[in-house]
């Protein structure tokens, strides 16, 4: 409700010549058409022109520390960015659920407004309180900001020894519909049905994003993962949308594989895959499996791209048992923040911080407990800062 209201308020401004000019100045590379309110046909994901920026070039980013180890790792990332002189200003908000006018608990309005203004967010791990009336906070954020694609690059890290050395896969997962639409009923006593919803619009959107991502990041191949031999109509539609979009990007190789074949091949030879695009459930499972190949959720960055902005997050849990003890591993949040910098096209800063982080992991001296080391979170942070030069 609030988003539409704000959209209505901003419509005259958005359609004015002033905004067009502003957006052209802010992001000359996007062709100047990013600021204009656009129809559905040529939706371009994550208009960077929209992100709030000062005239000095400093970007404002909404920061959601989260619960458990969230605050410590967010502080670690902030310290590292300050030391690296990254032009980011943090706008910290709290998304602890408050009771809304309808009696249900949801995100406070201040947080919603903040992300709508800044358009970019960095989020720590959230915990949804168990109980009636509490909607999943992650789901609420996703719905509110219309985040339709989840990107998870899984790259083998030097210094983290797993059984797989050559993983370099990006999983792009449709985030809004599919098996997770939550539409379930009990038809008769003892028979339950759950509905998987696939729409052409969402499939096209995520396919478009996947190919754009591949182009921008110099990826060679996009693989659509599906199960169209069984779910003929639904996955068939998803596949058709991917095929249609593939024709517009002739430089990028496109292939389609069954989900079981991908699973089979992924655990035998992960180097066969480059970018994977898939509907919600398969994406959830595959992205977690790929992060398992590189060392777990504590080392995997994740970004959610929406029509109106992007939210980067760490996907591990809140780890309440080590919260507050300075034992947390900030690598996942740090890598997500680096992804955010690339999204904002601050590539030099991103490279610097990334190299420092990789150096520390390669050396292996200041690793935290979950990576097999004995260092504290602050030791790790200081090690990364020292490698920043």
């Amino acid at each position, binding site marked *: 409700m609030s988003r539409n209201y704000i959209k209505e308020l901003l419509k005259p401004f958005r359609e004015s010549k002033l905004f067009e000019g502003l957006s052209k100045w802010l992001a000359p590379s996007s062709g100047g058409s990013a600021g204009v309110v656009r129809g559905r046909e040529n939706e371009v994901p994550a208009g960077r022109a929209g992100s709030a920026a000062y005239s000095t070039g400093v970007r404002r980013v909404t920061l959601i520390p989260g619960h458990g180890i969230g605050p410590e790792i967010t502080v670690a990332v902030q310290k590292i960015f300050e030391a690296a002189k990254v032009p980011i200003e943090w706008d910290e908000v709290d998304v602890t659920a408050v009771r809304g006018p309808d009696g249900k608990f949801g995100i406070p309005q201040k947080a919603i407004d903040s992300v709508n203004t800044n358009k970019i967010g960095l989020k720590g791990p959230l915990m949804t309180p168990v109980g009636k009336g509490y909607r999943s906070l992650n789901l609420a954020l996703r719905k509110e900001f219309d985040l339709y694609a989840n990107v998870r690059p899984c790259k083998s890290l030097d210094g983290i020894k797993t059984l797989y050395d050559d993983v370099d896969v990006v999983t792009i997962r449709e985030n809004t519909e599919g098996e997770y639409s939550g539409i379930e009923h009990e038809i008769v006593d003892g028979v339950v049905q759950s509905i998987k919803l696939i*729409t052409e619009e969402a499939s096209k959107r995520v396919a478009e994003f996947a190919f754009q991502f591949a182009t921008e990041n110099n990826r060679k191949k996009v693989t659509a993962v599906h199960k169209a031999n069984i779910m003929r*109509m*639904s996955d068939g539609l998803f596949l058709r949308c991917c095929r249609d979009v593939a024709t517009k990007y002739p430089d990028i190789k496109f292939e389609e594989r069954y989900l079981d074949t991908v699973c089979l091949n*992924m655990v*035998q030879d992960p180097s066969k895959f480059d970018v994977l695009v898939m509907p919600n459930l398969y994406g959830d499972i595959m992205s977690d*499996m790929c992060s398992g190949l590189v060392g777990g959720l504590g080392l995997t960055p994740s970004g959610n791209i929406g029509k109106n902005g992007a939210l980067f997050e760490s996907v591990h849990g809140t780890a309440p048992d080590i919260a507050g003890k300075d034992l947390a591993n900030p690598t996942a949040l740090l890598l997500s923040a680096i992804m955010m910098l690339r999204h904002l096209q601050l590539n030099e800063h991103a490279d610097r911080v990334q190299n420092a982080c990789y150096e520390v992991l390669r050396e292996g001296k200041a690793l935290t407990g979950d990576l097999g080391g004995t260092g504290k979170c602050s030791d790790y942070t200081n090690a990364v800062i020292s490698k920043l030069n």
Partner: protein
Amino acid sequence: MAVRLFSKLKVLPEFRNVSFASSAAAPATLSDFDLQHKTPVIRKQKLIPKAHYGGRHAVTMLPGGGIGPECMGYVRDIFKYIGAPVDFEVVDIDPTMDNDDDVQYAITTIKRNGVGLKGNIETKSEAAYVTSRNVALRNELDMYAYILNCKSFPGVPTRHKDIDVVIIRQNTEGEYAMLEHESVNGVIESMKVVTASNSERVARFAFEFAKRNGRKKVTTVHKANIMKLSDGLFLETSRRMAKEYPDIEHNDMIIDNCCMQLVAKPHQFDVMLMTNLYGSIVSNVVCGLLGGAGLLSGRNYGDHYAVFEPGTRNTGTAIAGKNIANPVAMINASIDMLEHLGHFFHADLLKRAVYKTINEDRILTPDVGGTATSTEVVNAIIGNIGL
């Protein structure tokens, strides 16, 4: 509704002293007449007397497509060599036909024979109203449980060693219900159906299997945090079943966490129980960990019929006819079939020969890191029989 109807049947003399946990747990000893008329809530199976003449069994063979026909050829050669008392009744299913006549014929033969050996059947037609032939076969014969016994082969080079996991997967419903429709242009709904009776049957199957085979732990894999009703029902049923088997440890795990654990630490799993789609994913992951699709075999079990097939249901069209397909999966399936039919002598003979070929002689096809052709592997197995 089913429960209310069933309670009214309790007045009948047959049911007075019998209590069933669910309508689906009724004994298979009821006569056809009783089954038809007095127990309307029990799934009706039209039983045909099974074929067993002079100590020899007749088994339906469905070669399917891709590498199926050649592998079936190898199985027939081996069986001829060892003199296994099994006669194969081959039914070819034409993948391009749109009607189901040949599938129906195949189903009738399996009902008559009781046991089948099959490859993966292709369904070339991509039309939405044509059910996948494999799914149709399983549903029609009500083979509700699928077992994949995953044991590491010491002779195959893999990243993980000594894996010993059994995957039990619900085989007929879940995401493979194949009920889809286009409600509005561009919006498609696909239904995932989970029923209490099927969940209970497969959970009971899993726990019985664990008990009879000395397994210690059953893990239910689900996604009940998101699909609260459907996977929630499956999870609840397995938890309830776990209470009836206090010796067997039971825990549950969410599917994404499970996949992550499988690639990092697969040794924590013993028996895994799950719905159809998750079963497909997990069995492919574990087969990948073990060295590929060409080694393991799976068993489809129903109350009356059993069909054996290669574990990951791959057609292998890309390698068909090139003599590099791995015949071990199909041969393992035939060993399972011999054990099911009770021909333990022949099954052991073959098992030892296959074990020796793969683990000691290491004569392997290219997909598991060897250089031999399929025929070389088969000849090696034949050579090792009796040693």
